[in-house]
Structures are given as C-alpha cells and as structure tokens.
C-alpha cells in the first residue's frame, strides 16, 4: 500500500443520515485498496481542501462505506460531494476491533453520537454469525432524536439483539428513554461477567460508560474503546495522534481498555 498518494475513488452511493451527517459508498477508479477491517480508518481527501481520518462504517460487497459528520472545512466538503464526484482515499490505517475475541461471549456495544459509525460493522459482523456469540446488547445514545444514525439498521438488529436507544433531549415524537447512555447499562440483559464490550463515542462518554460496565462486572480485559486524536498523515509520521505511549494511527484507534485506562485518566495528555 502506498501511504502517501490518495487513490481516487468515485462516490457511487450517498445517504443523508442526519442534518450534518452523510454516508458515502466509494468505488475505486483504478485498483482497489486492501479491505478495511471494522475499526480501521481511511484518510479521505477532498482535493484542494484537505484530508481527515474517517473510520469505515460498513461495506456494500467489497466497497467501503464511510459516515462523515460535517464539523469542519474538509468534512463539509466531503459531505457536500455528490454521487459521481471523485475523492481521494488512503488506508486502511490503524487497529481493528478484535471481534474474534468476543466469540463465545455475550456482546455489549455502546455508542455515543457518531461513535456508532465505527461500531456498525461490529454489530453486523456479530449478527451475521449470530450463533458464535451469546446475548447481544446494543446501546445507542445521541443528543437529540434528529441526530440518531442508522434507524433502519437498528430496527433490523432488534430482531436478533437487545437494542436500546436513548437521547439527551427528547422531542414530541420520541417515546424512548431520555438521558445519558450510561443510564441504560443496568438494563443490559447480557451477562456482564461473560461479556465482551465495544465502546465508541466522546471521550467522557466512553470513560463513564466503561466505569459503569466494570461496575456491573464486565472484565476490563474484554473492553475495547476507539480513541480519537488529530491526525495529519495516518502513517506514523506527523506526530499529532500521540496519546502517551501510543500513536493512535498505528497503535489505535481501537485500544484495549487496560492500555487506555491510565491514559484516559490523565487530563490533557
């Protein structure tokens, strides 16, 4: 893999998830990149604007899907790209969720906001091989109902898993739970002591979620989190994604909680 040159990809599918979030399906213009594993990320280039790390949020056949939230110049340009437009892709970079380690265990997936994007392939991987796993709980939190991702997928998952969705602030049409995603943890039907957990969201959400999971008896060694820092290259050269001893483009973004815990504990590390 050439880690430097973005490989042109055409947007062949585009779905508007929320007011500021879009999922795109990418087809390589030339030779395809190596397959992305769940948890890994691509550096997506909006030519002339910049590039940003975006995790893989699923795939259609061999084609990767990326879910992008417009929060800055590059992500706005990527979200604004139309089907047929060409963007650049580098990758795959980083560590993957170790889904195999959860085989034979109950599975707990906890997502906050856009954190559901890198976790969707985990849920789909587990549900596609349902008999290899025990009970499956998927907890999803968002600030408002309008910011929830993947409504159709979550309804499909509910046939094979315990899926609970909560929002910080409800609106008139909302009939589900209201509050932080951590408040859902007591409702998990899976056996915590026999479970493996996958957590992604804002850092504070992950911290309190994992504390609650540990308090219910989930073994620390079976908790994985996906961490975020700035990235300028994805390839280990720019130094921006350091978190203590980790280069998150190389040693992350998916990190076992025993490694992450002492680092998450230190403010401004």
């Amino acid at each position, binding site marked *: 893999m050439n880690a430097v040159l973005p490989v042109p990809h055409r947007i062949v599918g585009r779905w508007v998830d929320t007011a500021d979030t879009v999922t795109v399906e990418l087809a390589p213009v030339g030779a395809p990149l190596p397959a992305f594993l769940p948890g890994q990320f691509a550096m997506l280039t909006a030519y002339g604007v910049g590039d940003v790390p975006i995790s893989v949020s699923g795939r259609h056949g061999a084609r990767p899907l990326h879910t992008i939230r417009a929060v800055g110049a590059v992500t706005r340009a990527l979200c604004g790209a139309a089907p047929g437009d060409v963007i650049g892709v580098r990758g795959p970079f980083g560590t993957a969720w170790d889904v195999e380690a959860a085989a034979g265990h109950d599975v707990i997936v906890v997502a906050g906001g856009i954190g559901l994007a890198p976790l969707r392939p985990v849920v789909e991987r587990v549900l596609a091989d349902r008999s290899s796993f025990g009970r499956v709980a998927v907890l999803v939190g968002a600030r408002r109902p309008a910011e929830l991702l993947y409504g159709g997928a979550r309804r499909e998952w509910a046939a094979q898993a315990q899926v609970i969705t909560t929002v910080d602030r409800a609106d008139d049409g909302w009939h589900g739970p209201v509050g932080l995603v951590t408040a859902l943890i007591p409702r998990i039907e899976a056996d915590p002591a026999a479970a493996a957990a996958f957590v992604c969201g804002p850092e504070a959400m992950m911290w309190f979620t994992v504390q609650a999971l540990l308090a219910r008896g989930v073994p620390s060694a079976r908790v994985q989190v996906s961490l975020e820092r700035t990235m300028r290259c994805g390839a280990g050269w*720019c130094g921006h994604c350091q978190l203590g001893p980790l280069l998150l483009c190389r040693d992350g973004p998916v990190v076992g909680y025993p490694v992450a815990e002492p680092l998450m504990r230190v403010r401004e590390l």
Partner: protein
Amino acid sequence: MTSADPPRLIGTDGLGALFTVLRERGYTVVGPTARDGAVVLAELASAEQLPSGWSAGTEAGRYRLRRREDGAVFAHCAGPVSAKTFVHPPRARLWSADRAPDGTVTTTGPEAPAKRFAFVGVHPCDVAALGVLDRVLAGGEHPDPIYTARRDGTFVVVAECTEPAATCFCTSMGTGPGATSGFDLALTELLDGEHRFLARSGSPAGAEVLAALPSRQAGEGDLAAASAAVRDAAAAITRHMPDEPLPALMAATRESPHWADVASRCLTCGNCTMVCPTCFCVTTEDVTDLTGGHAEHLRRWDSCFGLDFSYVHGGAVRTSTASRYRQWISHKLGTWQDQFGMSGCVGCGRCIAWCPAGIDITREAAALAASRGEPSGGAEP
C-alpha cells in the same frame, strides 16, 4: 581498506581534498560554517568555509560565537541547524493532483531530490539523531518517501567531539562524545603539535573515500592523543540527566506538581522543537490554483507547543502550557521508547541554548525526579 583497517592521519589540506573527493562522487557537501552569528549547517563549496577558529559559548538561553586562538575546525557545539533540515525538509510537497474535464484525477507523488548529501563535520550527537529519524520516519510500516529519498545514499563524516559546550549532555544519552556507529568516515581533530585529524572509516564507502585522500599512517602517539581528546571531552561535560531509567520517570510523573512550575516559565514558542535534531512532527496544508482543477498537498514542520497541534473537533486537547511542555519532554525522554524502542533525545543541548526562557531539559528532568511523591496535581476527566 575496510573499517577494520588501521586509522590514518590527514593534515588540514586533507579537508580540502575531502571536499573534492566527495564532490567528484556526486555529493553535495553540507557542513558547519560560521554565519549570521552562529555555526550553522549549510551547503558548502569548499573546506575554507568550515568554521576554522570559531567555537561557541552556550548556556541556558544563550549562544555566542567565540574566536579561538587556534585554528580548530570542529570545535563548535551544536548550532541552531541540524542535519534534520536537509533530510526532513521544513517544507515539502507530498503530492499534487490534477482534475481532467471528465472528472478523472491524476496524482503525482513527491519530486525526487536533486541532491545527494554528504554531511561533513557533524558531531556524534547529530549522527545519533539521524539514527533516531531513520527509526521514526523510515523504520515503520510506512516509510516516509520524502525522508528516505533524501537520506538513502547520504555520506556521513562525523567529527568526534573534542570540545563540548556547557549545554551538552551526550554522555547521559550514550551518543558521544566519541563516534561508534552511523558514519562512513570519522575524524578526530588533534591540536597538540601539528594540526591534524585522525581518520577512520566506518563503511566500505568511507574506506574508499579515505583511500582517495592524502594521508599517512597514524602512530601510537596519534591514537593516544585522539583517545585522550575524546576522554577529556567526556570529562568536561557538566550537564547530566538523572541517573535512572527516564521512561519510567516520565510515566511516574504525569501528574507531578512540577508541570505548573515549568508552565510559569515556558512561552510555548516552540523553539526547542525547531532546533531539536529529532523533533519530526509535521502538519499539512492543501492549496489549489485559481481554476480549482489543480490541488497540492504540502507539509511543514509543526510543534507540539502550538495550540492547534492537538485540535480535534470541539477544541484542543492540550490547552494548558503545562500539558504541552509535558507532552514534549515526556515524548522525548519517555514515550519515544514505547513508540520507537529508543530515546528521542540525543543530548545535543540545543533546546537548552535556544530556549528564550532558558528552560533546561536536564534540570526539569531532575526536578521531576525530585517531585515524585509530592501530591498529585491531576484529576480524573
């Protein structure tokens, strides 16, 4: 002649010949020269540009050129420029892309460098720094093409350090003052009696170049004088790191109250990161021409002291000065070991001399060591 061959002696005329021989072999010679009030590394046309008769006096926050009585050529200490500038350029284009009317994009990678560098007269600390950059930028899964294109095929003539400055602490980092590896040719400047250089090769390429220089056999006295010069240099070094494993010290002091003390002095100017021969961090910027059909992806040196450095959506992770200084020194002395299996500090002392506030990495490390056991200044997120 191989690296096992006995050292040779060359006279001051040998330096001129060295330049000629290297240029004949296609190298662009980069070496120290006195310019703009400092000994800097620059592309040199002849040995006459070497800083003969110059050395520098340094202290925390201070660097002053000093005239010497003798004509010593390599008596300078680390100046503001290191070999990093040449192999990891401050600005570089990673790629450019052109969009055709049908929307297809053609991408062009980085330009091949036009020059092949021979570094002449760099000190062992700076040779060690090249080894650090080799590991960081070329030793991982994705070698940096800009670095490797410039570093591959370089020729290194190390000048063993015989006159360390007050800011030097290479003996603590195991990188000097003698040269043990990473060079093609090693020179030891001898000023007792005749002004001469003991020369030994460290590679077949070095042996070949040495064989092309006017030289004579080195006597026992020359070898003894060279050993003594390096030994005396080691003894003259006054700054030292705490004598304990530094990665463990850094990991144990993440929440030391001492960070607030450093923060009261640090200006977060980033000078230390710019002069450091191993600080490699870069940021990127993208530009277009007026048509929008041509885009370029550029990178330039960046510093972990900048507020933007740790910006993620929502804000910077490291907003306080304390956290940014902690990141720098902890990376250099501690987590570099986790990330790359070596220290990120080579003991050249540049960060001490070029800090406008005179912050001294050795004193801060000692203060951190002393601060262990004091109440923690940190908190849970």
